[in-house]
């Protein structure tokens, strides 16, 4: 379809404005992270005006931010990074494994009450997290899990209703004969799930893994509730440490620098997984 030059111009204008609206906060965050403490402070109070390129970039801000994270120089950052990585990797693994396994069961096994169970599971999606927050806290306290990583990691191994639903829908489309062929070839249900179903679910797994990764990596509330000691905190919580005791900000430039660093894995992961997303959509489209 050929568009008129005017339509093209309008289209480009809208797209550029939209992109700017999304990119500006990131850009500005990076700009502030490279400012001197005084200019950064002025920038966030608004008295410095909006600067799009820092006049003298302070790259050492990044090293300073890493050093100043937590209460121990350097090690505070290392602890927070390690905790974030451990929690995120385990949660992603747990969510993918449990959700796909349960999704397989709902899609392929016929058992009494499976429909009712599926509906109950979907029902849990309607519950806001705030409702279960306090009961969960009490349960985990009974287990003696407060100030450990357990409350952050263990629930992931019990499935996520939304991803179970996604897996179930996808697995239900896999031809029954593939599963039967695998049965004849000598596989049990667990092996069929691992060797046939999971490889075929790659697009769903990519979505599940990336969303879970981003959600867990950036999660602030759960670590804040369950973790108290400094060396247990995750990066998202450690960022909060840059607030002073009155809730104000003394070192905005360092906060911004650490924020930029924290964001990098999410962006890299998203770019890396983009191809699989698109592939998943395309495969769904041409499947006859």
């Amino acid at each position, binding site marked *: 379809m050929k568009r008129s030059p005017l339509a093209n111009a309008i289209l480009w204008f809208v797209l550029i404005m939209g992109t700017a609206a999304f990119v500006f906060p990131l850009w500005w965050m990076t700009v502030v992270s490279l400012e001197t403490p005084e200019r950064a402070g002025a920038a966030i109070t608004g008295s410095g005006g909006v600067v799009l390129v820092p006049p003298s970039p302070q790259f050492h801000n990044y090293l300073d931010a890493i050093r100043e994270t937590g209460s121990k120089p350097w090690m505070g950052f290392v602890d927070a990074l390690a905790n974030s990585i451990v929690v995120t990797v385990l949660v992603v693994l747990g969510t993918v494994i449990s959700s796909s396994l349960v999704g397989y069961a709902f899609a392929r096994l016929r058992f009494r009450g499976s429909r009712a169970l599926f509906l109950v599971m979907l029902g849990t999606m309607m519950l806001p997290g705030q409702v279960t927050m306090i009961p969960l806290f009490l349960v985990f306290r009974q287990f003696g899990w407060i100030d450990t990583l357990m409350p952050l990691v263990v629930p992931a191994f019990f499935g996520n209703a939304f991803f179970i639903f996604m897996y179930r829908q996808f697995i239900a489309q896999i031809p029954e004969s593939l599963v039967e*062929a695998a049965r004849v070839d*000598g596989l049990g249900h667990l092996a069929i799930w691992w060797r046939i179903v999971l490889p075929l679910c790659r697009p769903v797994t990519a979505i599940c893994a990336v969303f879970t990764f981003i959600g867990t990596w950036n999660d602030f509330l759960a670590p804040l509730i369950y973790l108290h000691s400094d060396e247990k905190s995750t990066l998202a919580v450690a960022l909060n440490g840059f607030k002073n005791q009155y809730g104000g900000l003394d070192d905005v430039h360092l906060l911004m620098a650490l924020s930029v660093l924290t964001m990098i894995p999410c962006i890299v992961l998203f770019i890396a997984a983009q191809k699989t997303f698109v592939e998943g959509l395309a495969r769904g489209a041409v499947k006859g």
Partner: protein
Amino acid sequence: MANVKLHKVGKVYEGPGGSQVRAVEAVDLAIADGEFCVLVGPSGCGKSTTLRMIAGLEEISEGTLEIDGARVNDLPAKDRDIAFVFQNYALYPHLTVAQNIAFGLETRRAHRSALVAALSGAGAARAEESAKIDARVAEVSRTLGLDALLARFPRELSGGQRQRVAVGRAIARDPKVFLFDEPLSNLDARLRIETRTELRMLHRRLRATIVYVTHDQEEAMTLADRLVVMHKGKVQQNAGPQECYERPANRFVAGFIGTPPMNIVDGRLANGAFGANGVHAPMPTRVSDRACALGFRPDRVRLAAPNSAGSVAATIAAVERLGDRTDIALDSAWGRIVARIDADLATGAREGDAVGFTFDAAHAHLFEAGECGARISV
């Protein structure tokens, strides 16, 4: 290789509200070692269900199934040592052709995990197994002409190639029994006939016991050593293909086997003649007078001059020229009758012409009245 015995095997499905649907009823079948047995029938006749019960993909509700003399009713599919070729091939889309063929061998190997084998000092044994599997895959792919495709994925293959990979996956494991569920129905007509011949040759070479399901009676006739015609969950006839054609056990088999199908007319036998709707034709037989159905194949029909003695008057409804022969559809008091005659005898036939026809009484069949009326010896 092995023999397969079904004794009074039946399948009952639980319908909604506790009702029961009987899909397969009391099937008795003895398939000898190395025999090519074809289950044939219209869709919904229970042939696929029977095959799936042999495979262990469907539970057996009644009766016993024996493979090599051992009762296997409760044995899971993987322990029955059978191979199944699916209508849609069911190739694993994420594995290459070579991996697909090797899959059943891999899952059965003694040392599944390379790591465990290495740690337990069985690394050499595992390597030997792997070499054996590779050799087997190479051998199978050579047999089926798949050598050049081993590294491809199923999505990169044509329908015919996929079908051959599916067969390759089955023969790689050297199972006791091969089960085929309409394996050719997704191929185009020309390829289907070619592949049919290849399957037949493969069976000769492997001397394998094969149970094969199809709804295509021509495919069934050409492949089978033993033909099992099914209808409404019951075996209608279990015999060699030629016998099913020449001496159909009942009216259903008569109408199902042979193309174009046998002409069957409901009427009455009286005084050495068969009559229907007031029109009679001579039918010499020792059978006593009764209501019955008369069957005669299209190639046993001859055209005659209108109103000639002993002929049935008819009008030509359609003429289909096949080259060497011509199929002529006739409208008569006996209903629609198809005649297959030599092309040079039919050059003058025009649609709308008034003619007469006779049938070869020596090759005619008589059946009891009813849909599955039994054969009456002429």
